[in-house]
Every structure is written in structure tokens, then in C-alpha cells.
């Protein structure tokens, strides 16, 4: 094709997006590292360079390890459930049955509702004299401090994240299931395979890339949880439900210790970048081919 555009046209088209990305992504990206070597805690307007001090403080802080541990529990509980259960639902919805659209709408509903409303709704379910404690009392269990007992608070919050994510991943799986050849299922039916073997031998191997994709996206979003914790527990009790992003927020905007919070942000950045690299290079490569 002949070149119909001037020398500067490509740059003019990219310029507006580039300005936004430079100001709100690239400069902040590098500045995060710079901030992590500064001390803001004495005078927020005149930070001074302190070298590795924030990192030393961070690695000597027991809360840091608690927060890191909580975040990994979040990953280990939420990610497997979000990778497997929505697939199971997608397979069920993909059978020739009535009412598929209604099921999809109802199960997708938590995805579009504001996370703040979702967290408030669960806080109400979890209330001390709430409906969940009534439910457990009917089977003879004493009231549980869902959000007030350090043993349970983190898991109670994780349930909200899982509940809000199921519909989203189910739709991703449904799209992937369309690509599985129907003849393979028919062959299984002739062999008399049951539901489980049929899907373990045909469906799962066929949509492995999607399973892997869902695993990494749900891992990345589990690393970034904030609103659930902010609305329901504020990280408590006793830091038991505090995760990385909430801790960054707390140190930066409540303690005004931007340097320490930035060191924490660098840790988050590194972990998320590793997940994203895996995601881009293994699963979404074709989407980003130059």
C-alpha cells in the first residue's frame, strides 16, 4: 500500500495517549522507586534521602510478614476456587437446558454491582446477630465472629471476593467451551463415559490455556484487593485481614509515611509484574503480536 500519511501523522495520533501514559503511568512508575528511598515521616513537604532505610524497616516489621502471609492465603484460597468452580458452572450451563440466559444474568449480577455495596451486603450477613449466625445456630454451633474473630476475618473477606468473581470467570469459560468440538463428546457418550471422565478427558485438556489464563488473572486481582477490606474490616482485628494494598493505603494516607508505603508498593509491583509476565508470554501472546 502506498504511504498516504505525512511523516508526523503517526506521532500526532499517538501523542494524546502518550501524554497521559507518561504523566500517570511511567513517571509514577519510576517515582515509586525514588519515593521508596525517601523519608516523609518527619516533614511531608521536605523528604530526605535515606537510602535503603525504608526497606530495612520493612523487612524488620512483623506486620509486613503478616500482610504478605495474608495476601498469599488470599491467593491460595481464592485462586483455585475461582479457576475450578466457574468452569464447573460453565459446563453445566453449556448443556442443552432451558433458562440459560436467566442463570447467566443472576450469576453475573455480583460482578457488576459495586464492590462497596457487595461488601456492605456481606457485612450485614456476617453481623453478630445476623442471618449467618442464625444459620449456624440451627446446626448447634455457637455464634461466630465472622469479621471480629482474627481466626475467621480474612476468610470471611475472601468469600466476598470469590462470590463477586464467579460469574466473571464463568463467562470466560463459556466462551472457551464453544471451541471444544462436539464430536469428541459424542464419542465419549458412545463409550459410555460418565460426566466426570468425559470432562476430565475432553473439556479440561482442550481449554487448558483458558484455565491458565483465569488462574493468572484471578491471582493478579487477588493481589490487588482493597475495597472489601476497607469496607468490612479495615484490616482488623489485629491485622488478621490486612493485605498488601490495604497496608500501603494505611501507611501512606493514615500514617503519612509515603517512603515506607512506597517500599511496600515496590514489593507489590515486583510480585504483580512476575504474574503479568507469565500471563503475557504464555497465554495472551497472540493478542499482543506486533
Amino acid at each position, binding site marked *: *500500500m*502506498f504511504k*498516504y500519511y505525512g511523516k508526523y*501523522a*503517526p506521532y500526532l*495520533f*499517538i501523542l*494524546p495517549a502518550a501524554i*497521559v*501514559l507518561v504523566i*500517570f*503511568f511511567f*513517571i*509514577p512508575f519510576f*517515582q*515509586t522507586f525514588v*519515593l521508596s528511598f525517601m523519608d516523609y515521616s518527619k516533614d511531608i513537604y521536605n523528604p530526605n534521602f535515606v537510602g535503603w532505610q525504608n526497606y530495612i524497616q520493612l523487612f524488620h516489621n512483623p506486620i509486613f510478614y503478616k500482610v504478605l502471609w495474608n495476601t498469599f492465603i488470599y491467593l491460595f484460597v481464592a485462586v483455585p476456587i475461582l479457576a475450578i468452580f466457574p468452569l464447573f458452572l460453565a459446563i453445566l450451563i453449556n448443556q442443552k*437446558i432451558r*433458562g440459560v*440466559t436467566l442463570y447467566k*444474568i*443472576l*450469576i*453475573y449480577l455480583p*460482578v*457488576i*454491582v*459495586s*464492590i*462497596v*455495596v457487595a461488601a*456492605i*451486603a*456481606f457485612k*450485614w*450477613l456476617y*453481623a453478630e*446477630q445476623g442471618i449467618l449466625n*442464625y444459620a449456624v445456630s440451627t446446626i448447634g454451633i455457637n455464634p461466630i465472629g465472622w469479621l471480629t474473630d482474627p481466626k475467621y476475618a480474612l476468610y470471611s473477606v475472601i468469600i466476598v471476593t470469590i462470590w463477586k468473581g*464467579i*460469574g*466473571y470467570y464463568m*463467562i470466560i469459560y463459556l*466462551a*472457551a467451551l*464453544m471451541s471444544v468440538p462436539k464430536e469428541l463428546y459424542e464419542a465419549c457418550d458412545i463409550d459410555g463415559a460418565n*460426566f466426570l471422565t468425559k470432562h476430565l478427558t475432553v473439556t479440561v485438556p482442550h481449554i487448558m490455556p483458558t484455565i491458565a489464563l483465569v488462574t493468572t*488473572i484471578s491471582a493478579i486481582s487477588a493481589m*490487588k484487593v482493597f475495597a472489601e477490606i*476497607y469496607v468490612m474490616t479495615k484490616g482488623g482485628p489485629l491485622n488478621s485481614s490486612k493485605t498488601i*494494598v490495604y497496608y*500501603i493505603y494505611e501507611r501512606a*494516607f493514615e500514617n503519612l509515611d509515603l517512603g515506607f508505603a512506597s517500599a511496600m*508498593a515496590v514489593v507489590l*509491583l515486583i510480585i*504483580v509484574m512476575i504474574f503479568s509476565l507469565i500471563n*503475557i508470554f504464555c497465554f*495472551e501472546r497472540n*493478542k499482543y503480536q*506486533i
Partner: protein
Amino acid sequence: MKKLLEKLTIHSILIAVSLLSIFPFIWLISTSLKGNSENIFAYPPQIIPTDFTFDNYIGVWDKVNFIGYFVNSMIVAGGTVLLNLILSAMAGYPLARMEFKGKKVTFFAILATIMIPFQAIMLPVYLITLKLHLVDTVNNLAGFIGLIMPFAVSAFGIFLMRQAFLSIPREMEEAAIVDGCNVFQVFWKVLIPMVKPSLAVLAIFTFIGSWGEFLWPSIVLTKEAMYTLPVGVNNLQGMFSSNWRFIAAGSILSTIPILIFFLSMQRYFISGENEGAVKG
């Protein structure tokens, strides 16, 4: 017979999961409709209110400026959508169709932003926003711009538009150029009308993401008059401390707009065609 049993099992599982998906909202609605003479902590819990009333809705509507929150959310989400459409389409076009120096670098720089979570860079973003005076303490307009700009464009949008442009046959442009169009006319009059479906997808998913955004507005906003719906709803907890009837009514009220949006656009969300349209 075996087939019937199988279908029955599938339906019962799906009905159970559907109920679990909406139950937290049902219980919230139930609580919001209970009057003062009914104990909302009663055991066993009552789903159908015995003292049925809309008073909680009226009460919370009088005390909380929902229209204000709604308008603020519309301004922020609308502005974010508009900028994303314009900036993504503009940036996606040369990446799909033109050869220029630095194309590879630009491509990978944009790709790299996918790996940078906003939560990790939000502190410098906040400092920059302050420095640019884009906060509500300056004036409301500056406040809105500050809420919008960090999300004005995304790598996801740029790549989505690039893909859309790649799928258009080159003959379309060639014909237009022969007819005497310049590059801007080709872009605006020939290409943009042809990528409308992708623009619609980008608009809808950007809107949902922006509408639900909570972290950034709760960092930058200082004035209640500037609150968006999620920030306003979170604030209900403080305003009505333990008046769960009001908190429930307010939460439900705030959900109505996005519910209408979802139900009218549901095919975009649940058809699965837009898989990969990643949430915020």
C-alpha cells in the same frame, strides 16, 4: 429416565448457585423494607417484612444527596469513557496501519503498562495530581479532571482498537485516498464508523470499571459534594452507624442505575464474545 434425572440435577445446582449469587441483595432489600416496629435481628429471620414500609428509603433519600452522587458518578464515568474512546482509537490507528520510527518501542512501552497495577503506583500518581492542582480543594472541575485523568486511557483499550483496525480491509482506505481524503479524514470518516462495535465494547467495559472505582476517589476526594456513588455509599456506614435499615435502603438505591444499565446491555456481558474485556 436417566436424562431427566441428569437435567434435574443440573437445574437444582444452577438454581442453588443463582440463589447464592443474589441472596445477599435479597436480604439487604428485605431489611430495607422493615419498619421500626419489626426487629431486624429476629430469630428466625424473616425474609418477608411483617411491618412493610418504604420509610427507610424516604428517610435516607432526605438525608443523603443521592442525585448529587449519581451526577458526580455520571460525570466521572462519562468523561472517562469519552477520553478512552478518543485516545485509544487515535493511538490504535498508527499502531495498526502505519510504519514509523520508534513503533516497536512505543508498542512495548504500552504493553508494559499492563503489568503496572495502579495500586502500586498510586502514591506518586497522587503527588502528581496534587502538583497539577487537579483536586477538589482547588475547584470542582479540577476535582473531576483529577478523578478522570489517571484512567483516561489504558493499554487494554489501545490494543482492542488496534485489533479492530487490523481487521478492516486496506482497500477501504485506498479508495478513500484515491477520492482525495487526507489521513485525518480517512481516520474519522472511513475507519471510525467501521470500528463502532469495538468502540461500544470499550465504552461499556470502561463505564462499568469507572462506575465502580472506589480506591482512587476515596484517596483524592475531600468534599462530600464531590462524592461518587461508591464513596457515598461507603459513607452511609459512618452517617447511620448502626441503623441498618437506612444503610440497606441507601445501598439498594445506589445500585438501581447500574442494574438498569446491566439489564439493558446484558448481551454484551454474558454472550462471552467479549471475553478478555478485563475488569478494573
